[in-house]
């Protein structure tokens, strides 16, 4: 393997990780400002112009927080759990394409880390192992609220993963490929959100549930479970859970944009390749606003309703959508 290729991969990975971490920091500010606007408040605006230094201030505050480990907690797992939670949120970015091919210093560089023929399956695999951090955190804290939060989240994520996986099948069938780059290229003129509107809606709902966002933030329902699985965490360990949740939000928005909204492409217009990441970023920001809007608007689901909705409504509809898409594809040819 040539050394230049390895250096290229390292640089691209570093860019993705940096994007994830700064994206997390500024998403918290974006969310607080947007929520404040919706609730006719001003929001954090003291640190720097428009509050742009607020995430830095929050970070410094969290670093100097006292880190507590409960007396009878399982220490090893308690320390590992935040790391296990962050890892899937970061590695899921490996297959998401953020642009076409650009030429930098006479070298053709693809603006994605990996274009594998099992890309979509990789997304489901990473989503499947993303639950462990939360479950282990809940168990190792030796706290009944934390344990209940962990159990709830494992049940919720397993239930909604099925609908999430089935919603992927529509775009796969239309594009005839599991590679995310192929799926984006297949949406040259028509976004899959049009013909696959049912799959798109199912993906958005199941995606919110998968990352424990409101109105599916059952594992951390404050009124019932204090803070759920991270009740015993403080300082940087808590910050890691926070980080995982927000990076997952960005990742879900990026996946939604890639599978259903044309990814780094605009319909009918051939953009220069270096504008691809900008197009994708704009789509991500719009989708993120949708998530914040949902949080500001909807009350939390009751737990049994959440399960019933996932299994009795979302899953059958997703299955019917797969069946319908397959039949129409066969009829049209």
């Amino acid at each position, binding site marked *: 393997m040539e050394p230049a290729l390895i250096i290229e991969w390292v640089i691209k990975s570093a860019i993705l990780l940096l994007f994830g971490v700064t994206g997390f920091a500024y998403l918290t500010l974006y969310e607080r400002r947007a929520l404040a606007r919706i609730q006719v408040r001003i929001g954090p605006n003291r640190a720097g112009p428009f509050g742009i230094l607020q995430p830095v201030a929050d970070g410094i505050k969290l670093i100097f927080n006292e880190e507590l480990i409960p007396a009878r907690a399982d220490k090893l797992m308690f320390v590992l759990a935040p790391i296990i939670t962050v890892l899937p949120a970061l590695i899921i970015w490996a297959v998401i394409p953020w642009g076409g091919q650009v030429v930098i210093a006479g070298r053709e560089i693809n603006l994605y880390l990996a274009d594998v023929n099992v890309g979509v399956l990789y997304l489901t*695999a990473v989503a499947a192992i993303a639950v462990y951090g939360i479950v282990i955190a809940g168990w190792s804290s030796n706290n009944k609220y934390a344990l209940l939060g*962990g159990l709830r989240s494992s049940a919720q994520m397993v239930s909604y993963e099925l609908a999430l996986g089935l919603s992927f099948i529509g775009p796969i069938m239309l594009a005839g490929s599991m590679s995310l780059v192929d799926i984006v290229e297949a949406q040259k003129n028509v976004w899959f959100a049009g013909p696959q509107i049912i799959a798109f809606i199912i993906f958005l709902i199941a995606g919110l549930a998968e990352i424990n966002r409101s109105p599916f933030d059952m594992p951390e329902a404050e009124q019932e479970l204090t803070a759920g699985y991270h009740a015993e965490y403080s300082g940087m360990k808590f910050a890691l859970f926070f980080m995982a949740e927000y990076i997952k939000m960005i990742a879900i928005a990026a996946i939604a944009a890639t599978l259903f909204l044309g990814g780094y492409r605009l319909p009918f217009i051939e953009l220069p390749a270096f504008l691809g990441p900008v197009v994708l970023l704009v789509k991500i920001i719009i989708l993120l606003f949708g998530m914040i809007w949902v949080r500001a608007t909807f009350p939390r689901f009751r737990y049994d309703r959440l399960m019933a909705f996932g299994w009795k409504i979302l899953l059958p509809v997703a299955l019917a959508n797969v069946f319908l898409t397959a039949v129409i594809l066969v009829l049209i040819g």
Partner: protein
Amino acid sequence: MTPELITFILLASIAVASGLGMLFSRNAVYSAIYLIINFITVAVFYLLLGGAFIAVSQVAVYAGAIMVLFLFVIMLLGAEKLGRSGDTLPWQRPLAIILGLGLVAETLYILFFQAGELVALKDLPEGFGSPSSVGSVLFQEYLLPFEVTSILLLVAMIGAIILTRQEKKNAGR
């Protein structure tokens, strides 16, 4: 030593260590976590052999869905600490030792006396292990076994649902 061999030895030792850890851990949650590590290592083995599809399926199905349910049940029942006294099947241990030794003997026999028949795959055919090639083999050559397996799984699923319903009815009385 080639890089492949180094990777293999490294992975194999992780796989064996996590397997042993799973067996000898006294805490069921740790056992489950060792098993997850083991499944992921096996998935990396599949990747080394060029089977990307089966590798990712291994992670999604075994390391993901199935082990989440295992962990869920262990935590829900609070059964993480293994008691030494609760050995309700006394004949199980000697039988397990005999069967295990039999398996080891069989493996050793194949390894030492029939190893010549194992041929290393040098050139993989075009599209080996890709989703489309796995799919076409599964739905053309092995359609009947595939359908039989699906019906078996469906029956098991319906059985599980009916069993839990029964329990609810009894509790209501």
